[in-house]
């Protein structure tokens, strides 16, 4: 039998796959995970800054920090990679399960779109670790996940901590789609809550029922386990509350749980724009705070006014707080600019640095891996061309797990810097 290779099936010549080859080449250079970075200032977030220091990175981890010079990468300053606790990269309604208002068992990880352009934007702005929460359309939204912002294209491979906090919301957002069932239910938005009062009631009911289910197994239902862990303080309870009345509600919720003997929840108030109004409540309830991005004229959501000196007030009272940039869709909203605003409001540099690095890492229990420059931690670093957080300085380099995601060397970014 005469057998021929059938190159004649089509006239078109076989084209060698150029982009596939390019991908392979790119992969090889990306694999380098050992660098020595020299800087005039090394801000470790673990104490005094080191002048004329170097950070030695080996195999994706920080091996050593100290005095030195003559590294591969020379920049003005190095800080730890920034940690964002309120990364609002989600797929809208596809990220929040609307068939119920209380969904503690839902995992934010299952809706992460690792290919969203916003991740690139975040990492270019120096964010190397981010927590993704369930959007605020449910009362109890579900479990948040802490991820690296660059690396493997499989979300699971980027996870720093799964089920890091139980996230929910108080305010106008969780009830905003709901309407009364009159004359009869039309869809599953024909339900309560339709008001702030209803949202508060759903929270109290959820926590009460989860506590009650511990003693009466007949009351057990889906999601109890997560709420019970939150009541026990094993899983921080993170509640979005912009306005002061909503922050107060969040505080009263955990205080009720403690008073009634349901447990001892750890409270983190997210987007607490009006934390400055009644900060003593936060001190009293040992709550921590994640502040929203600073905005023009202090206007935020739920008619909450976000004062520029909020961070410095909380700092003076010893309330642990983190700054956040949300999804950084506006350049000035990026997390790397937030410490600058907070410092303008009176915050010290050291506290401002901590509020975007070590404090957020501690709040969600990932500080063994990230949040400061320390031997043994992940090599997540931000390289600056000037003093960090000053208006004239910018992020020129970013390392995530030792991989150089943004290259500070002039040759590497010449075309892009010329535009900025």
């Amino acid at each position: 039998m005469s057998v021929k290779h059938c190159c004649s099936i089509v006239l078109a010549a076989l084209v060698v796959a150029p982009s596939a080859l390019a991908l392979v080449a790119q992969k090889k250079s990306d694999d380098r995970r050992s660098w020595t970075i020299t800087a005039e200032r090394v801000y470790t977030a673990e104490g005094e800054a080191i002048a004329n220091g170097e950070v030695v990175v080996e195999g994706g981890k920080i091996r050593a920090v100290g005095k030195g010079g003559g590294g591969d990468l020379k920049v003005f300053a190095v800080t730890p990679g920034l940690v964002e606790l309120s990364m609002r990269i989600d797929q809208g309604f596809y990220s929040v399960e609307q068939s119920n208002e209380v969904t503690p068992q839902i995992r934010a990880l299952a809706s992460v779109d690792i290919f969203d352009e916003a991740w690139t934007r975040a990492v270019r702005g120096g964010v190397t670790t981010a927590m993704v929460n369930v959007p605020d359309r449910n009362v109890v939204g579900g479990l948040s996940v802490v991820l690296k912002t660059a690396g493997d294209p499989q979300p699971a491979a980027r996870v720093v901590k799964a089920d890091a906090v139980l996230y929910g919301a108080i305010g106008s957002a969780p009830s905003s789609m709901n309407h009364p069932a009159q004359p009869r239910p039309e869809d599953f938005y024909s339900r309560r809550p339709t008001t702030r009062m209803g949202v508060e009631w759903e929270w109290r009911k959820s926590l009460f029922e989860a506590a009650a289910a511990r003693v009466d197994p007949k009351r057990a239902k889906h999601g109890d386990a997560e709420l019970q862990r939150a009541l026990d303080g094993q899983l921080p309870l993170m509640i979005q509350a912009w306005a002061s009345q909503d922050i107060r509600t969040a505080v009263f919720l955990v205080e009720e749980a403690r008073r009634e003997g349901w447990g001892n929840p750890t409270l983190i108030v997210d987007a607490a724009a009006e934390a400055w109004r009644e900060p003593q409540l936060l001190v009293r309830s040992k709550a921590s705070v994640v502040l929203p991005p600073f905005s023009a004229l202090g206007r935020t959501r739920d008619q909450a006014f976000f004062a520029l000196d909020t961070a410095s007030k909380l700092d003076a009272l010893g309330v642990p707080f983190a700054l956040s940039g949300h999804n950084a869709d506006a350049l000035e909203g990026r997390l790397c600019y937030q410490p600058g605003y907070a410092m303008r409001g009176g915050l010290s540099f050291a506290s401002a640095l901590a509020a975007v690095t070590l404090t957020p890492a501690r709040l969600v229990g990932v500080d063994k891996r990230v949040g400061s420059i320390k031997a043994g931690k992940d090599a997540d670093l931000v390289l600056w061309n000037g003093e960090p957080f000053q208006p004239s300085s910018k992020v020129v380099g970013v390392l995530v797990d030792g991989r150089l995601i943004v290259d500070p060397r002039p040759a590497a970014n010449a075309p892009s810097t010329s535009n900025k």
Partner: protein
Amino acid sequence: MLTLLVFAGTALSAVGAPSSAPAPALVTNDATFAVSAKRVLVDGKTVVEDGVVIVERGKVREVLDAKQKAKADGLPRVEHDGWVSAGMIAARSHLGTRGDFDEPKRPVTPEARILDSVDFDHPEFAAALRAGVTTVVVAPSASSLIGGQSVALKTHGRVILDADAHLVIAPAASALRINREPTSFPGAMAMLNAQFEKPQGAVAHAAAGKLPVLIEVSQRDEIARALEFAMTHKLRGALSHAPLAGELAAQVKKSGLAVVLGPFAVGVTPRVFDSVRALAAESVPLAFGLDFGSPPEQLRLSVVMCVRGGLAPELAWNTLTSHPAAILGLQERVGTLRAGCDADLVLWSGPPLELTSRVQGVFVGGVQAWGGQE
């Protein structure tokens, strides 16, 4: 009674002038007969010049080259002045269902069988035949989380190859509705995981690896999620749609899943072709499918566009034939003209991956199913 008209090759003077092609006459599958052609495409890699396909009781007995041709002497013969290939396979379609392919009120219906919706006399099957498509998978739609079981069948003769070819699952936005649980990806994954952690019925078959899954996804985040889900539950089968799966080619390879691509419309971005080539470079089994309402001709068109985008022609032909056959576990029956396979033959005016080539006749199981008039 067997009637065989033998028509002379000389009568077909001009290749690609279909109006001059006379209709081959009816052949029953009791017959042993020969089909001779200028070129016989046994599979993507093997072309026999001046060859003869011997058909016996509906199966391919053997393919003879020019030197062995004498062995066919005395057999009734169809002489074709063109190419002969195996029938093409659409690895996913909704032919003959009239859109009756999901249960909108319920997200999980694993026991639903699309076979119950198939109208074998629907003109879409005849259209598929005319396009050279002899085997199709008819699947439930992607608008349910677990839509039910697909069926593999011939487009002629009511031949069912596999009554439960796949369990169709859709961890994708297509299955999310605003008035039915789940409305979200996390809700969908929680529901799917619950189904596969305590599997029953068809889900249990899929979880045990006995029933392949067809996973409907489109965006890359859905692909990543689906791969993780498939690997967690050790599922076998294929991703469906997923035009950018090649941007996760290494992960797709690792999952062991095949990819059922297409249909691609004219104007598809070069990025999609990059993706297809990346999958091919990782040796991921590839096949093509049709959407509800897409003309069956679009199957070949999709693949031809991929060839223009750099896919190797040999591989391209296999994605229409032997790859989907292997994905379905039907490689002994369909997808090639190797001895023992069903005599599903397509008579072409020229090379099948040239768009100017036309289908001039189709045999299914040795029976002439379509005669050449368009």
